[in-house]
């Protein structure tokens, strides 16, 4: 890379993890800024305005969730939270508070880079002032927002209005996790934010139409205890 790469703020109290993240990010052209505590993270974020934040949820001085909330008061910088398995509740809270995605420890460099690429791309799309894209293409799926048609490998799919709205939401956020709550708010509206089973049942219906084998989904994958993710082959390779 010729121009200085994106600045990533790594917020992590474990020195070994910081070393691993630095060693993975630098060769990909990222510049790395490191914070060990929540307080340090907020100071550095305000001073340097990073393009992305990698945030461990277990920090010594405060809950990582507080960092997400504090950041979101003034910044739209994408935040990817890092947390252990079996802390699904914490991940959901962080995502609903405005974090963009999450990584479960342990994770590999491939997964890390895929998440970062998706988060940066979405941040760019949101920041751009140009007109929204009329056609969304994710893997074999093609959603024409103007004609309101969906094709898979060129073949048209007949979706119900709700299935279509679900797919549009997933496609607009391709590669990124969406929590049950985020989906409910977008597709059914605030009065139904607690009806998680709506999402599960309609996601099942959508899968029947877009997946080869709906019981072995390859496109819309379940993130257990968190939500769903439409896989984007463009970033996962």
């Amino acid at each position, binding site marked *: 890379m010729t121009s200085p790469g994106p600045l990533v703020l790594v917020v992590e109290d474990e020195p070994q993890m910081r070393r691993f993240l630095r060693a993975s990010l630098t060769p990909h052209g990222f510049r790395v800024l490191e914070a060990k505590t929540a307080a340090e993270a907020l100071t550095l974020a305000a001073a340097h305005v990073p393009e992305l934040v990698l945030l461990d949820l277990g920090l010594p001085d405060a809950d990582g969730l507080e960092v997400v909330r504090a950041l979101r008061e003034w910044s739209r910088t994408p935040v990817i939270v890092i947390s252990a398995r079996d802390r699904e509740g914490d991940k959901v809270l962080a995502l609903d508070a405005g974090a963009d995605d999450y990584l479960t420890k*342990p994770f590999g460099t491939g997964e890390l880079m895929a998440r970062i690429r998706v988060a940066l791309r979405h941040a760019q799309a949101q920041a751009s002032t140009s007109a929204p894209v009329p056609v969304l293409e994710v893997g074999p799926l093609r959603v024409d927002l103007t004609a309101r048609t969906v094709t898979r490998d060129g073949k048209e799919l007949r979706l*119900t209005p709700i299935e279509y709205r679900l797919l549009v939401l997933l496609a607009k956020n391709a590669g990124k996790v969406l929590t049950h709550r985020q989906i409910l708010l977008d597709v059914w509206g605030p009065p139904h934010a607690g009806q*998680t*089973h709506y999402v*599960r049942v309609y996601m099942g219906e959508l*899968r029947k139409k877009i997946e080869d084998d709906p*019981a*072995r*989904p390859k496109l819309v994958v379940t993130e257990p205890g968190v939500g769903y993710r439409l896989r984007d082959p463009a970033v996962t390779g």
Partner: protein
Amino acid sequence: MRARRFLSTVLLVALGTALARAVRDLVALPDLVMIYVAVIMVAAAFFGRGPALVASALSVGAYDFVCVPPYYTLAIAESRHAVTFVMMFVVGLLVSELVARVRRHAEEAESATLRAHTEEMRSSLLSAVSHDLRTPLAVITGAATTLRDQGDKLDVAERAELLETVCEEAERLERLVRNLLDMTRLEAKGMKVKREWIPVEEIVGSALTRLERWLEGRAIVTRLPPDLPLLSVDPVLLEQVFVNLFENAAKHTPPGSAIDVTARRVDGAVEIVVADRGPGFPAGDELRIFEKFHRGRGTSAPGAGLGLAIVRGVIEAHGGTVTASNRTGGGAEMRVLLPIVGTPPGMPAAEEAGAPS
């Protein structure tokens, strides 16, 4: 509990006395004594030492009062009766002492067995865990130090192979730690079941997605009827159950062999069966495979033998059952039965299929 035992003893003596009174005029005095001895023995055997002593004392009094002339007074006319009283009381003491001793021995034996069992469990845990933790660690350390110290002397293929080994072993270590944590949580009774309404297909599907790379090249035949009811279960825990069942099936069958998943509604429950075409179980192993640290099917397959114990723990926490059997035509079959709890919540009004509006 204690009061009830003493009350029963008093009733027992009263019963014996009623019997003695009824047959008093038909039998000799020594036979009446036998009734009371029997009462004391019964009290000792069923109610313990204290009640036996009470029974002895009461029996002596009742015998004197009802059976020994002059009737209905505690006065003793002949001194030989006094000897009977003393003998009766001594028998009572001896019997209660014997019973107490037998009980104590039984308890000691039981606690010794329990101790031995716990000890055995602990050492089997330690040896299983330390072996399973050390093996991947040894491989990772070996491969990583080789790469660090002699990396420049290795060709590309050799380096790639060592790196692949590091990744595989790290994954194995991750699985083991995950299982150990799950097991610990199950045993600490700290596992909270967070029930949510979820289709069976999503649980199975999310487990299959997680194992995508592991199951690559395998036919997974799922037969899930479309009219299955939603289940009220913990989605994360149930996903783990099916991950463990699929991992187990994959571990014990040749690569490429098919795994079948079927579900159906049975009376008040949903039954989900994961079946393979591997060697099945040796006779008698169908129950033991769900025990902790049991490595199934007499193989050297990797793992600490925790996967299926976790399956059982989680399913039982949901009020369900899991059983293993050999499949007709060969292979193993795991049958999960989950009771349908509560009434599934309503759905928004059905929509028409057609052009999205």
